[in-house]
């Protein structure tokens, strides 16, 4: 019988462009110590560590997981690094979940840190993830390729740049209640529209910042839950799926899972929802921390997750459906759009979802949360994860 898995504690630092007062492993340690304190645990109470670490060329130290071993009390424990690009923080939660659910370990700490601004060449680093023969000679990186997806999506569904801007306004406002958020503030649709064009249709405010900071989550089986946490969030559903590296195969009529509409998220979400017992997401899920590095990304995922039909999410944004007090609170934290520490951005989504279920989200806490989901996206949407956190665990069927 698989183990029930619960969240014992979470921690995230404040995020900003640079942290010159600390080194990378010191940042990772900050999260490890903070999370142990939140769970009222000691380093010896942790059985294993999963390290959340994406491309390291940003900080110029390869294998920074090794650099961090002592700092996160890893010496003498099993430790592994997980890397699926921007989806890393979603994948680490699912890797740790399977280590506990399988009964291998009683408790696992997920921890990581990010510093993207150590190099002025971040866009060049991102260009290195593309095919060296057919893609790298083009100005392809995450902004430009997602911009191309947006061009086709907006034409297909009649979505305007103002529709994207409305989402940015809502999430910057949400981030006002989140002390950890990098970008926040009361802005207008006009402000977004007036921000400089980067790659059409994305302007500066449609894009996430480069954020530095750290995060951690400790999970454990029911025995550990009873010992350390009176109000746990249970991980009731996990789903992950990957797709072809070839972007050009995924935007054509013969595509099996059309990238323009993010159809692959339906698979990841479907699997997570099935085990979590979610059949009517808009009425059963109160918080959706969808991974949105760009303004187009989050709502397209909601469509595929079954919150509304394809092409409808931006129209529902106009009616306030995704506000804090709307039908579903979408990214109460401000989302990845306001804070993107790549290596732990997906982990922060999971932490935010778990905190909402545990009632510890603070000023941006949504009332009466029973189920919250967190997604993560890596590469050019080649890696997708969806995890569900719930107040009640699901009895095994």
């Amino acid at each position, binding site marked *: 019988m698989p183990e029930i898995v619960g969240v014992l504690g979470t921690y995230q630092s404040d995020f900003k462009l640079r942290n*010159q*007062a*600390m080194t990378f492993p010191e940042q990772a340690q900050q999260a490890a110590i903070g999370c142990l304190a939140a769970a009222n645990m000691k380093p010896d109470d942790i059985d294993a560590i999963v390290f959340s670490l994406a491309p390291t060329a940003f900080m*110029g130290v390869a294998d920074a997981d090794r650099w961090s071993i002592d700092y996160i009390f890893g010496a003498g424990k099993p430790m592994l690094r997980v890397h699926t690009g921007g989806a890393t923080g979603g994948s680490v939660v699912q890797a740790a979940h399977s280590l506990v659910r399988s009964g291998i370990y009683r408790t696992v700490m997920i921890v990581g840190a990010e510093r993207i601004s150590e190099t002025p*060449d971040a*866009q*060049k680093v991102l*260009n290195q993830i593309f*095919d*060296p*023969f*057919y*893609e790298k*000679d*083009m*100005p*392809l*990186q995450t*902004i*430009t390729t997602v*911009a*191309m*997806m947006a*061009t*086709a999506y907006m*034409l297909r569904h009649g979505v305007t740049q103002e529709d994207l801007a409305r989402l940015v306004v809502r999430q910057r406002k949400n981030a006002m209640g989140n002390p950890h958020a990098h970008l926040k503030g009361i802005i207008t649709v006009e402000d977004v529209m007036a921000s*400089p*064009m*980067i*790659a*059409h*249709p994305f302007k500066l405010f449609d894009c996430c910042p480069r954020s530095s900071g750290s995060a951690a989550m400790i999970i454990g089986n029911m025995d550990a839950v009873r010992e350390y946490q009176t109000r746990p969030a249970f991980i009731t559903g996990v789903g992950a799926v990957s797709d*072809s590296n*070839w*972007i*050009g*195969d995924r*935007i*054509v009529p*013969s595509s099996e899972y059309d990238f*323009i509409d993010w159809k692959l998220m339906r698979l990841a979400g479907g699997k997570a929802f099935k085990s979590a017992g979610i059949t009517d997401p808009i009425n059963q899920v109160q918080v959706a921390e969808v991974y949105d590095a760009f303004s187009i990304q989050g709502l397209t995922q909601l469509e595929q997750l079954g919150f509304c039909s394809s092409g409808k999410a931006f129209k529902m944004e106009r009616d306030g459906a995704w506000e804090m007090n709307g039908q579903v609170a979408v990214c109460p934290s401000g989302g990845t759009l306001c804070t993107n520490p790549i290596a732990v951005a997906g982990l922060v989504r999971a932490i935010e979802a778990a905190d909402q279920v545990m009632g510890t989200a603070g000023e941006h806490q949504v009332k009466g949360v029973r189920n919250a989901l967190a997604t993560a996206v890596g590469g050019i949407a080649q890696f997708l994860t969806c995890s569900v956190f719930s107040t009640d665990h699901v009895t095994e069927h």
Partner: protein
Amino acid sequence: MSITKHAAQSQVMTEEVTFRYDYALGEVAGKFMDGLREGKILATRCSKSAMVYLPPRAFCERTFELCDSWVEAGTSGVIESSTIVVRGFEGSRPPPIAVAFVRLDGVDSAIPNYVEGLDMSDVDKAMEKIRPGARVNVAFIPVPQGRVTDFYFVLA
């Protein structure tokens, strides 16, 4: 003495790292690059699925069979997605840069490349011209180098 106080002084150590690479093309990409030198865009086909792939593949992702023939892609095609990069990217060409994924005639997948000859003084108007569904033709640089940038797209 306080360690924290000392570390807070925002000191940095500067370093520049250069790596050099010789990427092995392999048979499939090698034949594609040889084709470019002759002014041809070569795709691979799987007879079991009838899928024609560009960039060419050694195997079919639908059937997991080897792609068993080479076909020459059409010299015109349709834009599937596009953008104009206005700023924020330090590449080999100065912005604005128009780039599009194009499905060439006779091919089932799309390949990215530059769109040249586009008046980009008004970015919104230029985007209208290269919106998904627009037709483009393939053009080659005068002396192909065996690199994907040997060809580019122009509006049909």
